[in-house]
C-alpha cells in the first residue's frame, strides 16, 4: 500500500530519530494491529492520524513499551523500549482510555504520578502544582476525579503525562469528547509543549484537530503506513468530502437554530437520543473555530464535540486505490 505513495525523509539517516519502528508487526491472535511498519519520527510535534481501528493506539502502546512487537524493533530516543523501565523517565503518555483511580482527587492523582516517576516529595509537590496550573486544573484539583467532567479528566490525564517533565510525549486521542473550551485549551497546551522543545506524537482520527497542532502527519490505516508528510496535501483530499461533527448539548434545538444560520453548514440532523446534533460542513476549520465563542457568548453549554470523520475513511480508500 505504502509503496504506491513514495515519500522522502530527507536526512533521516543522519539524525537520531525520536521514535523508530523497523519492520514492526503486532498481532492480537489472528487480528493484526500493526503491519510491517517502518517509520522514523523526528523531534517536534507529529500528528498520528487514522480512522478507528487503524492501529494508532497499538503504535503508541508499542512505543511506550506496553506491548511487545510480534516482529521488528521499536526504539525511542535510540533505546529499545520493551522491558526498559528507565526509559520511562523520559517518556510521558496520555492514554486513550478514560480510566483513573476514581477515588483520588486530581491533585492526588498527579502528585502520585510524580512520585511514581521517582520525584522526591518536594519535587513532586512543586511539579504537580505547576502541571495542574499549566493544564488549568488548579481550581478543581481538590475534587475527586470521579466527579470530573470529560474535559477535566482529559486535562488531568495530560497533567500526569507531563508531571515528570518528559522529553517525549505520546498523546492518544487527547481531545476526544472534550467541550470546545477544553479542546482549545488542550490544543494550546500541546502547541506550547512543542514550542518548548518537547517531542509530541499526538494521535487522532480527526484531521482538523491534528492540523491545528502540527503540519507533520503520519497516516495509518489497517495497521499500515499510508503516507506521511505535510498536512496540506491531505487537506485538499479531505475537503472534497463533507465533514460530520457531533455536538452534545442539553438545549440542542436552540443550538441547531444557531448553527444552521452559518453559511458553511450544509445540514443539521438532530440526534434526540444523544441530546445532540450532527452537523455537516465542508469548512470544518471555520466551524471548529467558532465553537468556543458560541459556547461562551450564547450560554449554549456544548458538553461534548466529536467527529466520526467518516470522510477520512473515504480519503484512505482513495489513497489506497490510487
Amino acid at each position, binding site marked *: 500500500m505504502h509503496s504506491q*505513495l*513514495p*515519500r*522522502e*525523509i*530527507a*536526512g*533521516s539517516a543522519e*539524525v*537520531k*530519530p*525520536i521514535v523508530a519502528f523497523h519492520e514492526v508487526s503486532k498481532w492480537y491472535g489472528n487480528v493484526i*494491529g500493526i503491519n510491517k511498519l517502518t517509520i522514523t519520527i*523526528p*523531534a*517536534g510535534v507529529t500528528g498520528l492520524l487514522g480512522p*478507528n*481501528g487503524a492501529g494508532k*493506539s*497499538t503504535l503508541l502502546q508499542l512505543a*511506550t*513499551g*506496553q*506491548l511487545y512487537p510480534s516482529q521488528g524493533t521499536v526504539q525511542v*530516543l*535510540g*533505546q529499545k523500549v520493551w*522491558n526498559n*523501565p*528507565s*526509559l*520511562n*523517565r*523520559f517518556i510521558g*503518555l496520555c*492514554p*486513550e*482510555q478514560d*480510566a*483513573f*483511580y476514581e*477515588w483520588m482527587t486530581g491533585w492526588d492523582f498527579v502528585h*502520585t*504520578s510524580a*512520585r*511514581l*516517576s*521517582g520525584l*522526591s516529595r518536594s519535587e513532586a509537590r512543586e511539579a504537580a502544582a505547576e502541571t495542574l496550573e499549566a493544564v488549568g486544573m488548579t481550581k478543581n484539583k481538590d475534587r475527586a476525579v470521579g466527579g470530573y467532567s470529560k474535559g477535566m479528566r482529559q486535562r488531568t490525564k495530560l497533567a*500526569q503525562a507531563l508531571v515528570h517533565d518528559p*522529553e517525549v510525549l505520546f498523546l492518544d486521542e487527547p481531545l476526544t469528547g472534550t467541550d470546545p473550551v477544553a479542546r482549545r485549551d488542550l490544543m494550546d497546551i500541546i502547541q506550547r509543549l512543542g514550542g518548548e522543545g518537547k*517531542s509530541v506524537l499526538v494521535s487522532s482520527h480527526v484531521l482538523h484537530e491534528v492540523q491545528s497542532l502540527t503540519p*507533520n502527519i503520519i497516516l495509518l490505516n489497517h495497521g499500515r503506513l499510508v503516507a506521511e*508528510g*505535510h498536512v496540506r*496535501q*491531505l487537506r485538499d*483530499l479531505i475537503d472534497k468530502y463533507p465533514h460530520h461533527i457531533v455536538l452534545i448539548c442539553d438545549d440542542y434545538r436552540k443550538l441547531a437554530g444557531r448553527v444552521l444560520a452559518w453559511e458553511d453548514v450544509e445540514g443539521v440532523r438532530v440526534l434526540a437520543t444523544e441530546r445532540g446534533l450532527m452537523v455537516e460542513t465542508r469548512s470544518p476549520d471555520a466551524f471548529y473555530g467558532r465553537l468556543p465563542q458560541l459556547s461562551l457568548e450564547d450560554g449554549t453549554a456544548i458538553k461534548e464535540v466529536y467527529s466520526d470523520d467518516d470522510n477520512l475513511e473515504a480519503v484512505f480508500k482513495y*489513497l489506497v486505490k*490510487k
Partner: protein
Amino acid sequence: MKSAPSFDAVDLEAGADVPDGPSGGFGLTTLWTLYVLTLRQHLHGKRWMIIGALFLLPAGLAVLMRVMDPKEPSVSLEFALAFMLIPQALLPLAALLYATGVIEDELEEQTITYLLIRPISKWALYLVKMLATVTTTVLLTVVFTVLTYLAIFVGGDTPAATVLSRCFTAVSIHCTAVCTYSCLFGLISLLTKRSLIGSILYILVFEWLLGNLPLAIRLITVIYYTRLIAYRTLPFVTPDPGSQNIAAEKWQFDIKSDPNLLEHPQLAICWIVLVAGSVAFTLLAAFLCSRREFYVKTPEKG
C-alpha cells in the same frame, strides 16, 4: 498526496538533540509510592468490609456459644473457631479476594497503564503490589484473630498469660498461612485469566477435599502444614479428665499408631515449607509478570 514531502530541516536538527542513554532503574520513591498506592486501593474497595464482616463471624459465634452454653470449654471453642473456621475458610477467602486482584484489578480498571509507563520493572511492580497485598491480609488476620481470642477467653478461667501465648501462636500460624495463600493465588492470577474460578477450585479441591483426607497428597496443601504446626505447638486438650487432644481426630492424625507424629514433617520443616512456598510462588509470579504483556482494551481495540 502522491509524494509526501519530508519533515522540515529544523525538526530534524532538533531530533539530534536526544538525551544520552537514560540511566538508573527504579528508586525507592517509586517502590514506596506504589506500595502506599496499593494499600490505599485496598482501603477504597468494598472488599475489606466484606472480609471484615466475615472475619467477625468467629468472634460473634464465640460470644453466642458462650452465652448459650457457658460450660463449653474455651479450648473447644478455640479449636472450632480459631483453628477450623479461620484457617480453613476465612484465610483462603481473604487471600483469594485480595491476591487474585494484584494485577487483574489494575487491568480491569485499565489503570495499569499508569504503572507500566513509570520507571519500574514489571517484576518489581508485582513484588511491591504483592507485598502490599500480604500486608493487608496479614493486618486483617492479626486484628480479627485477636478479636476472636478476646471473644473466646475474656471473662473465662484461663490465665491471661496462657491466653496471650496461645493467641500469639495462633496469630503467627494464621499470618504465615494467609501469606502463603496470598502468594499462591497471586501466582494463579498470572497463570489464568479466570483466576477467581481457578483459585476457588483450588480451595475446594485441594484445601477442603484433599487436605482433609488422611493421604500423602495432603502434603501439597497449605492447610496440612498449618494444622501440623498448630498441633505441634498448642495442646487442644479440654480440662475434662481423660480427654485427649481433640485436634488429632478432627485433623486425621493417627496418634494411636504414631503418637508423636513421627511420620509427619517436624515443626521446623512445616514453617520452612510455608515460607519457602510463599517465596517460590512470588518469585515465579514476578518472573511471569516480567515477561508478560498486559493488554489494555482501548476504545480503538475494543
